[in-house]
């Protein structure tokens, strides 16, 4: 019986998959695929770019590194983790996707995502739209004053910025202050009526982080660090991410 086993000769070369395995805590179970197809059958990205999660994983397992680190499909998988959720072996395909994104030269990655990350690096807001802290503060104060006057029942409503010791540190998607400021107000009203002690930060107020989507770890870390440090410096207890 021993004769029938197949011995693979030579030193196994380190592949993209092995590299990712060494990065993910726990290894991501990347060698445990049963090829059942549960991942692919429930993945909305299946079929795009002639790819699906099972196929992507198989290609990684076969060492087709060139193909898996160049297919644009990695920008069409949203890393939603549904594949992990349904996989009998909990295989972390999204981590493969993330690291395949990171394998692209930065200036070859999708321009829109890269520009949004670069905008966030311009100042301490962390906003994908590049909005400066002063502009955010101005919009918030302006909108608040307008509503306090127009709706006198809410004359005591607040929208604090950098309030020391506030319980909740709330961040804010850039879309509202930039393009639809009236949409800021309903949430302020709810927090006011519920008697919630909260604050925005002038630094790190923006909720989105396109550097993460860009798979740019250094920039991603910088953006989240500014935000976390602001919450810490103010002495806030809970970081409330509204994104």
């Amino acid at each position, binding site marked *: 019986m021993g004769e029938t086993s197949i011995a693979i000769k030579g030193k196994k070369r380190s592949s993209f998959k092995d590299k990712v395995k060494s990065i993910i805590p726990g290894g991501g179970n990347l060698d445990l695929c049963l090829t059942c197809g549960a991942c692919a059958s429930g993945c*909305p990205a299946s079929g795009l*770019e002639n790819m699906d999660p099972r196929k992507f994983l198989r290609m990684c397992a076969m060492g087709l590194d060139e193909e898996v680190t160049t297919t644009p499909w990695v*920008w069409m998988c949203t890393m*939603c983790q*549904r594949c992990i959720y*349904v996989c009998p072996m909990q295989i972390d395909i999204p981590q493969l996707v993330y690291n395949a994104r990171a394998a692209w030269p930065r200036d070859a990655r*999708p321009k829109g995502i890269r520009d949004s990350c670069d905008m966030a690096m311009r100042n301490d807001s962390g906003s994908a739209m590049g909005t400066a802290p002063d502009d955010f503060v101005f919009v918030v104060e302006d909108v608040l004053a307008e509503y306090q006057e*127009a709706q006198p029942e809410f004359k005591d409503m607040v929208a604090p910025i950098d309030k020391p010791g506030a319980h909740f540190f709330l961040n804010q998607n850039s879309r509202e202050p930039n393009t639809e400021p009236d949409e800021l107000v*309903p949430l302020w009203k709810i927090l006011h*009526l519920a008697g919630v002690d909260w604050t925005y930060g002038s630094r790190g107020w923006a909720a989105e982080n396109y550097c993460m989507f860009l798979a740019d770890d250094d920039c991603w870390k910088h953006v989240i660090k500014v935000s976390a440090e602001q919450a810490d410096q103010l002495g806030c207890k809970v970081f409330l991410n509204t994104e």
Partner: protein
Amino acid sequence: MKVNSEWNRERKIKFTIQDPCQIVRKSYGDAVAEDLRFVVRSVVGAENVIEMTPNKSNNYCCGGGGGFLQSGFTQGRHDYGRLKFEQIIATGADYCIAGCHNCHAQIHDLAHHHGAAYNTVHIWTLICLSLGILGPNERAYLGDDLKDVDVFHPETSLY
């Protein structure tokens, strides 16, 4: 002040719920999906909620996540979102409630792309509507069926 669904008792406007991958599957699981439903039912009436299948932790991503909205792959994003779009249409709901900005933008765009009639709304809008404190200028994402319902300080309208 407490929310209620009285405003929708006769209107019977139907709502479906998008479970954001980030909040539900990737963070707090079905427990937070149940919390979300408790709020939605209180605000629009339990009989006016129509669920998508599958949902909660097992939901399909809408295609707004992962940077897709800014990636430039618009065709791919619309193809990705077809599954979500068909789920929403199958409910027949007038509104899809999206608890995440990326979901909101994508689901709103899917309706636009397919010429569908449903609206995409933030939960904060509905909470304030049910409390009677939603002003005329805070209704960007409400359809004509709700633009004039229980308007707070209608005299401040800019439209």
